[in-house]
């Protein structure tokens, strides 16, 4: 499967990828974007790919376009429809969580996190998709 990780920190992108691999996901390719705008470009390119992205993991606080704006733009532009999106962020306050869910996020993980927590959030979403 292919996954897209969106975070302005290259370190966090690597840490999240490692957690996904430790979760037992059979990742054939991990796409990366450092903000929401770059992620939308990746998704537009993915529309013509024979093997589509199956999972999106996104930070919230990012420059250029943040994670909530990305969710809203993705919904408005009908990109990666039906693909589960899990937010991973330090911003775990209720207003942010509610806004993320309203904009189309299916899961929410607060930093710091363990690989087990990532697995517990991601696996049910992939099985249901």
């Amino acid at each position, binding site marked *: 499967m292919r996954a897209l990780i969106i975070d302005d920190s*290259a370190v966090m992108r690597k*840490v999240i990828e490692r957690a996904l691999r430790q979760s037992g996901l059979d990742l054939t390719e991990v796409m990366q974007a450092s903000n929401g705008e770059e992620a939308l470009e990746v998704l537009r390119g993915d529309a013509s790919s024979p093997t589509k992205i199956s999972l999106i993991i996104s930070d919230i606080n990012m420059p250029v376009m943040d994670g909530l704006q990305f969710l809203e733009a993705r919904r408005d532009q009908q990109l990666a429809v039906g693909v589960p999106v899990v937010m991973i*962020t330090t*911003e*775990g306050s209720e207003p942010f969580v509610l806004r993320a869910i309203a904009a189309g996020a299916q899961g929410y993980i607060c*930093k*710091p996190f363990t690989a087990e927590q990532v697995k517990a959030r991601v696996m049910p979403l992939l099985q249901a998709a």
Partner: protein
Amino acid sequence: MATSWASSLDWIGRLDSAVSEVFEMMLERSCVPIQDTDIVHDPISAQIFFSGAICGECLLFTSRTVAHVTAGVLLGVESGPDSSMVEDAVGELCNMVAGGWKSKLGSAEAACAISPPKVSTDPISSVLPTSEKHFRRFYSFEGCVFGVQMAFCD
């Protein structure tokens, strides 16, 4: 350093807890508070600002040597990460400590935004707080020492 106000609010205990959680969960390392120590040589620091119900900042500082080791453990790599990844890692650690500390506050106090981390290699003395309300804690994991300073608007 006047910290009785922070002790009464248990802000110090919450910081210790937040630091411990970050290291346990993200680095799989035990990290404990230690006695105050000298300002580190060849420093690197990351600073995050709180705005809203809480006004202040969180500063995480250490030596470049410790930052290099910490980044390697966080990334799970044997060979040393490059300097941009080390700075990125220090910023993310500060981000998670500040976010973890904030998440342990009551809902009214937690209604504040946290800024992106600002990483610097300036001497630590240049970022000493001017406000009365501040405290500093030092921590160690596997002999690697770093400090966290919390300062709040008067």
